[in-house]
């Protein structure tokens, strides 16, 4: 029965060839280091799911942000789990992306014809760090407040434009309600959309160019 529905859909949507191109493509003999990209992708999907769930209760205003996070963590059934996954997943994202990048560097996998995959990957890493930076402020506790005070001040050290960057990031001179909402907006709209677009290009190129084999000595 399942296959009849599958055929019915395939006749109209041609999903089997897409499935084949993604999952049944030929790959060289590789090792476990080649799973780091997929691990990053998996963690990204987990972050999306748990992140969407968190926005169901989280409120990005100074008078309610902290309380709503406390509510999620202590009152809501399974809230500790969802927030915990998002919290630890954030660290996992950074670690896995960097390890994935190191594998690509050491195996020389960034070379022709995979330069664009590499470029998008580099921007993706910056996006991931952006997620970490903006997400860190959202619980609106002491650690979040001071970490962002320091973080934006670091950006302010840049010559000439530093002060402007600092004010743009904070939405004014000081950390305020404006800072919190703009970090929230960037965290849940700007960065996810950027991430999805870049991830789409990145994955398309991985499939289109195939993955590189482990380099051998003298080659």
């Amino acid at each position: 029965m399942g296959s009849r529905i599958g055929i019915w859909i395939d006749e109209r949507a041609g999903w089997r060839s897409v499935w084949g191109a993604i999952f049944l493509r030929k790959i060289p003999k590789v090792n476990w280091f080649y799973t780091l990209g997929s691990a990053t992708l998996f963690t990204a999907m987990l972050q999306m799911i748990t992140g969407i769930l968190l926005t169901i209760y989280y409120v990005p205003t100074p008078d309610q942000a902290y309380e709503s996070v406390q509510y999620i963590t202590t009152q809501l059934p399974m809230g500790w789990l969802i927030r915990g996954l998002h919290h630890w997943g954030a660290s996992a994202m950074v670690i896995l992306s960097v390890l994935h990048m190191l594998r690509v560097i050491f195996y020389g996998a960034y070379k022709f014809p995979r330069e664009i995959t590499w470029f998008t990957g580099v921007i993706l890493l910056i996006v991931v760090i952006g997620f970490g930076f903006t997400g860190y402020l959202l619980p609106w506790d002491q650690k979040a407040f001071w970490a962002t005070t320091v973080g934006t001040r670091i950006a302010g050290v840049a010559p000439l434009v530093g002060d402007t960057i600092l004010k743009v990031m904070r939405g004014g001179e000081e950390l305020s309600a404006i800072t919190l909402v703009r970090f929230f907006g960037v965290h849940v709209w700007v960065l996810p959309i950027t991430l999805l677009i870049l991830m789409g290009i990145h994955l398309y190129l991985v499939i289109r160019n195939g993955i590189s084999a482990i380099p051998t000595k003298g080659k």
Partner: protein
Amino acid sequence: MEEQKPTEGQASISRRNFLAIGTLSIGGVIGVGIGLPSLVYLVGPSLQANAVQEWIRIGSASKVEIGVPTLYKVKTERRVGWNVTEEELAVYVLTENGSDFTAVSNICTHLGCRVRWIDGKDQFFCPCHNAVFAKNGEVVAGPPPKPLEKYPVKVENDQLYILVGG
């Protein structure tokens, strides 16, 4: 017939199928592991009953006119999640003899609009869909499925209390 190679039974599952089944199983476990807690997380507050029952003082009992539902309004604090809101509770209190009191909510049981007591007609009317309730809260006409909600009432030192929540 099938006995030529007793160990073949295990080998008949191909590497491809083994990996496919393995991937699907692990994926399924992860999916359920995330899916179930997510569902609990989403419906959590919907299932938590408003457990706090308390007597709220609404005012002096001597203000109630005999035989006429009298409107009392009180402000109450309501804590939902992390948020505390001030709410106005409106109840009509009725007594026929000056000692036994009944209290009904002014919330129409049809779709939640506020009903009003009309003196000349001696009935409650709801402006939204022409619901009509009798003095005791019973439905007289219109779409409401049930009578106006009644609150338990008590009188202490001439002060009226109603029991809310639970």
